[in-house]
C-alpha cells in the first residue's frame, strides 16, 4: 500500500493540545512542509512565543527557544546574529506580535533581520480565555468587549502587515488564510517563500495567517471558518504585499 498523506518530517510524532477545529494545527503543518521541502530542518531554530502556540517546541522536530511574551523577534535576532547559518523562525499570535511585541516585530522588520515570522491572526487572545486583541474586529464580542468592540473607545483593529509594508528591510510579506483548501494551498506557497527569502539572505519575511479560535469565538469549527471568511478577510485583505524578485513562484 502506498502512503499518500503522511506527517511532515519536521513535525514531531506528538498529539497537539489545540482545541478541535483550531487552525494552529494547519499552520504548523505548513511550516513543517516548508522546512521539509526546502530541506532546512537541520539548520532550523524555532522561537516559540507566548499564547496558545507556546508549546510549538514540542511539535516541531528541530531546535527551539521559548521567548517571553512578544519578544520572539528580538530573541530570533540574537540567534540569527550569533549563528547566521541557522534558519530562524518565530511563531507568534496576534496578541504576542501586534500588541505587547509590536515594537520588537516592527524593529526586526525595519532592520531587515533575516528571519521568518509566522504570524497567526485569530483576532483574539486565545490562551488567556478570549480577551480583546488589537486585531479584534469592530463589534466583535470578547470577554473584555462584552458588547462588541467599540472603536471609539479602543481604536480600530490593527493591520500589522500594512504597517510593515513600507519598511525597506521587509523582503517578503503576505497575508493568507487557512479557512479552506484553496486558501491553504496559497498559504503553503507563501510560507515556503518566507523561508526561501531567509535562505537567500534577502531580508525580513513575514506571513500573516488569518486563523480562528472556535473556543473563544463561541462557535463550532465550521461556523468559525465561515465567520473568518465573511468578517476577517474583508478587513484584512489577503494577498502578497511585498515580494522580492529573486523568489520563484511555486506554481501548483
Amino acid at each position, binding site marked *: 500500500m502506498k502512503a499518500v498523506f503522511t506527517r511532515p518530517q519536521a513535525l514531531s510524532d506528538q498529539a497537539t493540545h489545540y482545541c478541535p477545529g483550531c487552525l494552529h494545527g494547519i499552520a504548523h503543518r505548513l511550516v513543517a512542509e516548508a522546512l521539509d521541502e526546502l530541506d532546512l530542518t537541520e539548520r532550523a*531554530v524555532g522561537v516559540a512565543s507566548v499564547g496558545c502556540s507556546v508549546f510549538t517546541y514540542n511539535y516541531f522536530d528541530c531546535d527551539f527557544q521559548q*521567548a517571553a511574551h512578544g519578544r520572539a523577534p*528580538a530573541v530570533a535576532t540574537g540567534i540569527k546574529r550569533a549563528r547566521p547559518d541557522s534558519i530562524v523562525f518565530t511563531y507568534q499570535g496576534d496578541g504576542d506580535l501586534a500588541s505587547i511585541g509590536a515594537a520588537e516585530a516592527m524593529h526586526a522588520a525595519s532592520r531587515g533581520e533575516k528571519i521568518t515570522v509566522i504570524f497567526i491572526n485569530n483576532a483574539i487572545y486565545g490562551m488567556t480565555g478570549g480577551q480583546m486583541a488589537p486585531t479584534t474586529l469592530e463589534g466583535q464580542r470578547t470577554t473584555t468587549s462584552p458588547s462588541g468592540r467599540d472603536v471609539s473607545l479602543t481604536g480600530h483593529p490593527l493591520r500589522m502587515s500594512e504597517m510593515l509594508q513600507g519598511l525597506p528591510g521587509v523582503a517578503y510579506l503576505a497575508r493568507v488564510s487557512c479557512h479552506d483548501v484553496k486558501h491553504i494551498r496559497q498559504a503553503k506557497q507563501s510560507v515556503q517563500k518566507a523561508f526561501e527569502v531567509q535562505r537567500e539572505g534577502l531580508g525580513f519575511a513575514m506571513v500573516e495567517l488569518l486563523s480562528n479560535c472556535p473556543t473563544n469565538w463561541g462557535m463550532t469549527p465550521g461556523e468559525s471558518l465561515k465567520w473568518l471568511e465573511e468578517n476577517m478577510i474583508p478587513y484584512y485583505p489577503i494577498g502578497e504585499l511585498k515580494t522580492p524578485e529573486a523568489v520563484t513562484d511555486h506554481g501548483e
Partner: protein
Amino acid sequence: MDQDLQLVKGNEAVAEAAARAGCRYFFGYPITPQNELPAYMSWRLPELGGVYLQAESEVAAINMVYGAAGAGVRVMTSSSSPGISLKQEGISYLAGSELPCVIVNMVRGGPGLGSIQPAQSDYFQATKGGGHGDYRMVVLGPSDLQELVDLTYESFNIADRYRNPVMILGDGIMGQMMEPVRFPELLDPQTLPVKEWATTGRGGKRKENNLINSLYLDAEACWEHNQKLGEKYRQMKENETRWEILYEDAEFYFAAYGTTARIVKKALESLRQRGYSVGLVRPISLWPFPDQAFASLAEKARGYVVVEMSMGQMVEDVRLAVGSELPVEFIGTAGGVMPHPSDISDKMETLIREVGGHK
C-alpha cells in the same frame, strides 16, 4: 612590564575586558553614564569578527542577549539604572532558562529618571531579584579599574560555569574615570568548550533537539526545576563569594563596596593615623554576600559603620550577617551625591565614642 599598562576609561575598560574574554556579541541601548561602553563595542567587535547591534530598547536588547546566549556564544549587554529596570523581565527568563551572559549596570541616581551621577541605589534590584521568580545571579562590585577589568573577564567564566547571568555592578564615576590597567590575553572564542546544549540547529550532528525554555506548566515539574536552580545557587554561594578585609585585627569596621570603598579607605587611613583601631570589610561579590567575612571578625569586632551611595540597602545584609549583638550604623548619600571622607570618619568617631572604644 609597565609598558603593558594602559590608561583607559572605566566604560572602555569593561568593553575591552569582555572582548578579551571571548565576548563577540553585544546588544544595548544608549543611556548615560555608560555610553562609551557600547561605542567601544561598536568598532571593537566588528574588528574581531563579532557583532554589535543597537537594539530598539533595553527590553529588546536583553532578549537579543537571550537568543545569542541560547545559541551558545559569549554575549553581553550594558546599561544604567532605568535601562536595567527594563531588562528585569529578560533577566528572569535568562535565569529560568539557564543561559549565561554578562550584564553591566553603571548605576546612576534614582528612582525614576533620577540623575546621571554615580549611585549605589540599585543594590536591592541587583542582589534580591528585580525580576520575577526565585532566581539569583552573581553580582560583582569592583572598586577600581583593574578590578573592573579582572572581574569582567572572570564574569564570563562564572556565567558559563553555572549557565547563569552575572552582573557587574559599577556606578557612574567608575564608568567615567580613567586609571592605568593591564588587560588579560585576548581569548579566541573558538578555543572555548563547545556548549552542547545550545540551539545551533542540529546540523546533522545529533538526533535530539536542543531546547531553551523556562516553561513548566506542571507544578511538580516547575518545583523540580526550582530545586535544580536552588542547588546551583547553593554552589555559587560556596564557590563565588569574594571579599577583602583591611586590618583584620581592628575593633571597629567600615563596610562598603565599589567606589564608596575607595572613599572609605581615605577616611580609614586618617582615622588610623589618629590612633583609632578601624578596618574595612569590602564585599566584592554582593551576591553571594560574604557573610563569612563578618563571621571571621565576630571575636574582635565591636561595631560597624556601613557607607553607601544609597539611602541604606547593603546595610540590611550587613545587619543580617553581623546579628543584633553589635551596633551597625549607616551613613549614605543619594541621588548622585558622593560621600565625603570627613563625614564618614565623623560617623565612625561618634560610634566609637558611644560604644566606648579605644583610641
